[in-house]
């Protein structure tokens, strides 16, 4: 009877159960070490961010939080330029989301639903972007952006960030739309919808969660990008560009405060898209 119960379990579960206890202990020890390895630096930078000037120089340090306060963080946010940089980061990332979805999703839909001449050339163009360090392209763009009045604007930064996020958005939405049966759309046509109406009423609602995940990835890509943002801005810096610029002369506790502010949204975003992470990257890495 016990054997039949074991057979009913999925293969992976029965294999895990079959692991001898010593090996299970080893497995969980290994995982605990890895989890600590990921979380400890985040915890320590948080202590640095809330410990203030005195906390940074306390010696020797204790890994337990002691006299933490929001004072250090609010001081950091009150520095001239920090709030502006935060707003610029949000604007640039927001625009990157809009552009990469607006340009990438139609392309993904075309790749998923049509066979057309030049399809492979287009795919090659998208894949080619993978072989280049794209942020470097900000160098020549400085000159053109100055001429066009795009230099030192979050809009200009978002354009180069869209180059980073767009190929990703096109590939991911392609597979997203391939996963939605074409018959649904055809049924809507039969009932008198135009192609556009059919797309809006049938396909879009089904694609929405995946599109949201793609949007979050585009946001993170822009939020985190340092090189291009630093090259393309002087006064209207993004948070990363601002931090990079003040890095050499700013006191340690301000650096930690900045680092902590950069980390928090990222952690939340990864949590929000955790279900899509593997599907999305499985496709994007093709």
């Amino acid at each position, binding site marked *: 009877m016990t054997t039949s119960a074991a057979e009913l379990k999925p*293969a*992976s579960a029965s294999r*895990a159960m079959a692991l001898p206890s010593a090996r299970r202990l080893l*497995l969980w020890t290994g*995982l605990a070490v890895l*989890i600590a390895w*990921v*979380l400890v*630096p985040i915890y*320590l*930078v948080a202590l*640095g961010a809330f410990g203030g000037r005195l906390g*940074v120089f*306390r*010696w*020797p340090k204790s890994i337990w939080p002691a006299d933490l306060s929001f004072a250090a963080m609010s001081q950091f946010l009150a520095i001239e330029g920090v709030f502006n940089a935060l707003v610029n980061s949000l604007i640039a990332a927001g625009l990157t989301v809009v*552009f990469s979805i607006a*340009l990438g999703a*139609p*392309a993904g839909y*075309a*790749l998923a*639903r*049509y066979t057309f*001449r030049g*399809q492979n050339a287009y795919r090659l163009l998208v894949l080619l972007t*993978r*072989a280049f*360090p794209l942020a*470097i*392209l900000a*160098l*020549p763009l*400085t000159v*053109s952006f100055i001429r066009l009045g795009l230099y030192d604007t979050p809009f200009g930064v978002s354009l180069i960030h869209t180059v980073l996020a*767009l*190929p990703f958005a096109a590939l991911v939405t392609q597979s997203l739309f391939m996963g939605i049966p074409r018959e649904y759309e055809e049924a809507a046509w039969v009932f008198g919808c135009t*192609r556009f109406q059919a797309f809006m009423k049938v396909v879009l609602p089904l694609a929405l969660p995946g599109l949201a995940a793609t949007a979050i990835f585009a946001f993170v890509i822009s939020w*985190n*990008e*340092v*090189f291009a943002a*630093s*090259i393309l801005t002087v006064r209207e810096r993004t948070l*990363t560009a601002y931090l*990079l610029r003040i*890095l050499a002369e700013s006191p340690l506790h301000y*650096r*930690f405060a*900045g*680092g902590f502010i*950069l*980390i928090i949204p*990222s*952690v939340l975003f*990864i949590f929000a898209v*955790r279900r899509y992470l*593997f599907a999305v*990257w499985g496709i994007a*890495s093709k």
Partner: protein
Amino acid sequence: MPARTSWIPYALIAPSVVFLSALFLVPLVQTVWLSFSAGEGLSLENYQRMAGDLNFALAIKNTFLLTLVVVPLQVVLALGMATMVTKLDKGRDLVLWVLTIPLGISDLAAGLAWLALLQNTGYLNSALYALGLIQGPTGWLSQETPVALFFAIVLAELWRATAIVLVILIAGLQLIPKEFAEAAEIFGAKPWTRFTRITLPLLKPSLQSALILRTVLAFEVFAVVYALGGRNFPVLAGEAYVWQNDNQNYGVAAAYAVLIMAISLAATALYLRVMRTRPEQLP
């Protein structure tokens, strides 16, 4: 799929083609052009200035050394993580979420997080002090301790960018049919044999993607290094940034950019060739 080709797909891809042409292909050509132009006409002047720069040889050495150490370690570490996670039945999602958190963290923030740990009065030194190994606050990230600084950067890079390899490999593992390993198990193959004979070969396309992506990004490494060591550890992308922003010399910055692109392309071509997979080898 409709048999006739209509104008619709072209209308759908046109905006992104225009965009990528304007902001990917044009700047690509411009970078190359910029790097060869000095005064009037074409010359190698920018490249000569780049090669003659004090930091140039060091930047090349550092960037290559970092890539050669970090990328293979990341692949091994990610393979280990992926294998461990697939053995889990409970708490798998939670563990995976935690392990992939660094994916969302910027290189700058990662550098700052490790700075909290490694700075003079930081937590590592406190621990070493408690163990009686050092007398007081000790600097690891200065010019006088290049080896320690190198290892600090390696640690921060491993911390930050192993998650992306892990995600790509797990996505790849999910595509391998379970029957293969089960069949091998029935024929008596040990875990290690199953791993090297079945999992690894079938994982080759994912490994290739991960390697290309990570190598290209590793040659672009910059903010982690800057956050931890300032300019004590010159790397190629950092030099490009300095020439552009501090020295206001776009030509030499472009020469650095072209060099980084050339190395990235060569690495990509190498991976594509060495790790070629024939269609019949795929599951």
